[in-house]
């Protein structure tokens, strides 16, 4: 086989090399290993092949060998504060997140809602205030769409002036992607009859906190959904069972879970989370209000911290890219800290406001490398480098704990350093 052409420094190959040179290149591939796992055993007809296996369970769980593929919990003992469960991006692949691993943030515990008793009320500046049962909503025309949901505080560790050593799960684990099925909110608003004076709606949950957020009416009429299903099954309790507001591409906290009330109003409520939490402070002391949008972003999941390269050879660099502005149009990857770039292949279908998996083949020669990805969306926005981002949004005066939320809405480039031993660390480049 002819050696595939290098298209950027430090061994990045043409994104089409796998397609063109398929089998031969694949045979030369080396895999990543999770740090600490043992080498494979030689071929044998193993005991598990020599007799009937286990009974099929009603609800299947991953293999016992995958038990470490779990979310990480910020508040495992349920102390009276917010609980975060982060998605293990470095241990997953593809474009959607399995339901048990979808990130959740719950501010006052997960309510145990009886779906028969739950109601969604639409009232305020409407002609006809209405109440909907879950059963009734299930009889409306349903729509399915893939979309990511991302916490406005995701990636906050990258506001630190020095790189915090942590996995992609710890740094970026507050974003996930799922197929959501539900009723378009515009359908229900039409039935209620929106008063021309209404400019916003206030969405409120049935959790202990009665979490409440204000949403511009324009977004509600554009692509907002009352989501009833998550990846084909009913919503997980941590994701809002039995129904949540889904605002594709907008900060997670606004996608109000356990949704029980929508009130149409003339002005935003300035609730706790919009007035305080998701209003990031800027250098100089002013603050952004109503950020809402999750801007174009990408990060490499393979390799990344916690995965180890098993010696020089061919690898596939891959990761996820997404934008609240629409489809991903381009992802470029660097192996030399951003000096030279190779265009990555995008997994089809590329869907608006959903994870797009990008991939590029890489021949690692065993020397130090710094891996980066950078994405563009169809609206023309590009993911900033970290230095561009910091010039506008600042960084903290000193390093802080990885679970702290120094600021909000970080979407700049992430850099992974690879040392000659194949170990990956978080670096700034």
């Amino acid at each position: 086989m002819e050696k595939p052409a290098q298209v950027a420094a430090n061994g990045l190959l043409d994104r089409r090399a796998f397609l063109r040179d398929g089998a031969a290149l694949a045979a030369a591939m080396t895999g990543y290993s999770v740090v600490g796992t043992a080498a494979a055993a030689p071929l044998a007809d193993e005991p598990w092949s020599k007799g009937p296996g286990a009974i099929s369970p009603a609800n299947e769980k991953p293999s016992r060998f995958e038990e470490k593929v779990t979310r990480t919990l910020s508040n495992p003992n349920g102390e009276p504060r917010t609980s975060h469960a982060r998605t293990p991006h470095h241990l997953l692949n593809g474009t959607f997140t399995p339901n048990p691993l979808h990130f959740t943030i719950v501010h006052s515990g997960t309510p145990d809602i009886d779906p028969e008793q739950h109601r969604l009320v639409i009232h305020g500046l409407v002609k006809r205030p209405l109440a909907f049962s879950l059963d009734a909503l299930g009889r409306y025309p349903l729509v399915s769409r893939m979309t990511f949901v991302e916490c406005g505080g995701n990636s906050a560790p990258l506001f630190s002036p020095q790189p915090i050593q942590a996995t992609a799960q710890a740094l970026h684990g507050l974003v996930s992607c799922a197929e959501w099925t539900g009723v378009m909110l515009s359908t229900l608003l039409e039935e209620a009859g929106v008063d021309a004076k209404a400019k916003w709606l206030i969405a409120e949950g049935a959790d202990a906190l009665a979490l409440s957020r204000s949403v511009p009416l324009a977004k509600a009429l554009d692509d907002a959904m009352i989501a009833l299903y998550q990846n084909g099954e009913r919503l997980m309790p941590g994701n809002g069972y039995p129904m949540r507001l889904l605002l594709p591409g907008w900060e997670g906290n606004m996608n109000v879970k356990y949704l029980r009330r929508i009130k149409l109003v003339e002005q935003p409520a300035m609730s706790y989370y919009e007035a305080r939490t998701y209003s990031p402070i800027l250098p100089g002391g002013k603050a952004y209000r109503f950020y809402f949008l999750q801007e174009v972003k990408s990060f490499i999941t393979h390799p990344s911290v916690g995965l180890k390269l098993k010696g020089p050879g061919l690898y596939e660099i891959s990761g996820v890219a997404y934008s609240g502005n629409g489809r991903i149009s381009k992802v470029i990857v660097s192996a030399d800290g951003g000096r030279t770039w190779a265009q990555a292949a995008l997994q089809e279908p590329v869907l608006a406001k959903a994870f797009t998996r990008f991939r590029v083949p890489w021949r690692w020669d065993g020397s130090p490398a710094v891996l980066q990805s950078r994405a563009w969306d169809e609206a023309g926005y590009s993911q900033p480098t970290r230095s561009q981002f910091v010039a506008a949004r600042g960084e903290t005066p000193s390093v802080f704990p990885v679970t702290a939320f120094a600021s909000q809405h970080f979407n700049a480039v992430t850099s992974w350093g690879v040392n000659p031993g194949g170990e990956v660390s978080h670096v700034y480049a």
Partner: protein
Amino acid sequence: MPRVAFLVLLAASPALAQGPNLGQPISEAEVKAWDISILPDGAGLPPGSGTPAQGARIYAQKCVACHGEAAKGGTAAPLVGGGPLSAINTPKTIANFWGHATTVFDFIRRAMPWQQPRTLNDDEVYALTAYILAENKLIGSSETMNAKTLPQVKMPNRENFILRFPDRL
């Protein structure tokens, strides 16, 4: 007027699906128990009132365990004080950040106390709001908070915000 609103909505959303109209009519009176929304201009604020002194007594019973003596913080965030916004991660407090006093009333009423949310009556919520605002020197120590006075409280950081994407609102 209702007919006009309906037409405007149709024009704004070409993709509207026809629903089976299964919403059950409900009156605003029936929604009342759930309707705790407060707007910054005071719309939605209930009747009732409270003073800082009344609030201090309730605070000592129901809030101090988490928020600490004199509301200076404990296992939960401090409710008093706060430095200048000199760093992007300066802790945001009622005194240094919150733009509207109505947010204080709203959050206490909907979410506090943590273990028993929505058990305080409206007078108690006004009193606790008054106590916290007075401890932060945002109102006088004998001022009464009610539906008229609360929206008029001047919050120091009120004009310090920039709309991020004004065209999307």
